[in-house]
């Protein structure tokens, strides 16, 4: 259970939160560790990548309303495999039975440096409040065209708390742009990636959704759907996608577990999620533009059978059904300011047969569900400043064994319910320098508003102010 859209390499939390997790019962810690240590510590690669700018000769704002939000051109660039280029290349045309070569003269490398400050309303027990991270994270990207039809967004990230680099969001794709179907244009391709929804084109799905940045030191709610970051960088997938007539988008990927840092072949002992067979992900979306209105509505989902801590035996089953929308309005009268509204709803039905049968059990019973609702509205003042208000809610089946009591991270009543809001102000004095202030407030956290962990902590004790500077070059 990751936290909805609190992607971003919270590996930092590995030290702090994992120590909390280790205090839980053995069964519970397995599941919690899965979400907290694997997914919460994933910092969203919410970025505009300068090597794309160097490759295309276009400013960041050509593809982004504000990084990482893609406009129509940015979506097209991604759809076509990150390959559009206006810069010199080493090339040799195909002749007879010889292969062609189209190689960028410059290796498409980029770097990002994030530094941040976080303060929670109530200090976490035994720790100092007011936390300054310098850096919070540093990312290196191999992002650009590899060949005429093949390109990548590949990221490795150094995390200050973990003190090492680790593989981050990656999407390598091959695209064809010359297709026709029923007389209309068909752009199609293959993607290899390590995070369901990272290949998506819109900012209403989890991998690239709001909030675009987040702290890695404040507590985050425990419950979250698997598609909402729960498998990020813990799977490897191969999929296909197609956009027909610039309107209708289809994508599907099959995933297998790929545990970074664990021995191969996978014996399952390291990890909470071990995909049995293959886990399919699907996506259908319709987009249209008329006048200054840009609209997308879609659905996505995933099904997974998994055995915690093993590769044989009983299986837990998860099925996520989700819907999403995105609306952008450009206002010419106001210097082309843009209003963006996004939202998603995820319904997860899970059948925790293996967890309930485990000794000791890690779930109290078999049938569970989670409902996740996220929405946000943003106003872009040109490309320099944006303000966003977001709301989130997670509700579902209460289970004191699945969501056990623990200080700060636990639930005294077994309820997964969390609700709250986020205010964000971002200022980009240059298109590659971002300054962000973000306030996250909770009305309920892990099932309660007061004393939710039965250790005296209130939901609003986890309210946080987060200030971050990002340098992208």
């Amino acid at each position, binding site marked *: 259970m990751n936290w909805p859209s609190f992607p971003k390499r919270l590996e930092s939390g590995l030290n702090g939160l994992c120590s909390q997790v280790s205090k839980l019962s053995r069964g519970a810690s397995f599941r919690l560790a899965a979400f907290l240590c694997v997914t919460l510590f994933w910092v969203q690669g919410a970025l505009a990548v300068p090597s794309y700018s160097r490759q295309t*000769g276009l*400013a960041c704002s050509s593809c982004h309303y504000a990084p990482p939000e893609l406009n129509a051109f940015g979506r097209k660039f991604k759809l076509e495999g990150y390959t559009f280029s206006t810069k010199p290349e080493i090339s040799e045309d195909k002749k007879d039975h010889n292969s062609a070569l189209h190689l960028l003269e410059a290796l498409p490398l980029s770097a990002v440096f994030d530094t941040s400050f976080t303060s929670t309303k109530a200090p976490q027990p035994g720790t100092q409040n007011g936390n300054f991270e310098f850096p919070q994270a540093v990312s290196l990207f191999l992002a650009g065209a590899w060949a005429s039809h093949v390109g990548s967004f590949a990221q490795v990230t150094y995390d200050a708390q973990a003190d090492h680099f680790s593989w981050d969001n990656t999407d390598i794709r091959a695209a064809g742009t010359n297709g026709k179907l029923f007389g209309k244009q068909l752009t199609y391709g293959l993607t290899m990636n390590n995070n369901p929804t990272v290949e998506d084109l819109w900012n209403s799905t989890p991998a690239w959704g709001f909030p675009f940045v987040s702290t890695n030191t404040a507590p985050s709610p425990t419950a979250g759907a698997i598609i909402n970051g729960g498998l990020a960088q813990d799977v490897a997938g191969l999929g296909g996608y197609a956009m027909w007539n610039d309107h209708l988008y289809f994508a599907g990927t099959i995933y297998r577990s790929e545990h970074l840092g664990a021995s191969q072949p996978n014996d399952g002992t390291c990890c909470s999620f071990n995909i049995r067979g*293959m886990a399919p992900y699907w996506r259908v979306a319709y987009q249209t*533009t008329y006048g200054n209105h840009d609209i997308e509505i879609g659905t996505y989902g995933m099904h997974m059978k998994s055995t915690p801590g093993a590769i044989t035996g009983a299986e837990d089953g998860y099925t996520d059904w989700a819907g999403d929308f995105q609306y952008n309005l450009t206002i010419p009268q106001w210097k082309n300011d843009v209003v963006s509204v996004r939202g998603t709803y995820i319904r997860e039905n899970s059948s925790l047969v293996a967890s309930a049968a485990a000794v000791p059990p890690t779930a109290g019973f078999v049938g569970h569900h989670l409902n996740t609702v996220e929405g946000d509205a943003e106003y872009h003042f040109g490309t320099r400043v944006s303000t966003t208000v977001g709301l989130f809610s997670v509700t579902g089946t209460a289970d004191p064994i699945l969501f056990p009591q623990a200080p700060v991270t636990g639930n005294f009543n077994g309820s997964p319910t969390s609700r709250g809001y986020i205010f964000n102000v971002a200022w980009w004095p240059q298109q590659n320098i971002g300054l962000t202030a973000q306030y996250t407030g909770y009305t309920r956290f892990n099932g309660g508003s007061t004393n939710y962990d039965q250790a005296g902590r209130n939901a609003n004790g986890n309210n946080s102010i987060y200030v971050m500077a990002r340098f992208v070059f």
Partner: protein
Amino acid sequence: MNSKLRYVSFALLVVFPSWLAAENGAASLFKSKCAMCHAEDGSGNSPAGKALKAKDLRSQETQSKSDAEISDVITKGRNKMPAFGQKLKPDQIQELVGYVRQLAKK
């Protein structure tokens, strides 16, 4: 599962190589470098074209320009349009100028 993997592998082997083949000719050059914004028919009537306010290449405004002027725009870029002078050879740019002329006749 093994049979599924075999189907996937087969599909990759069949489909993938055709994508990697380089395309030739003014039409494919236009498709790969220009259509992203200007649309395949040159109208600029694509989501990306609308986002960047790409010109309608069939319009009187564009077609009234001389070949040298159109070539100059492709080579050096203008407003949000990037320069292609480093990427394309002069004869490729001339092919594109010719293709832009053809668009008005379609």
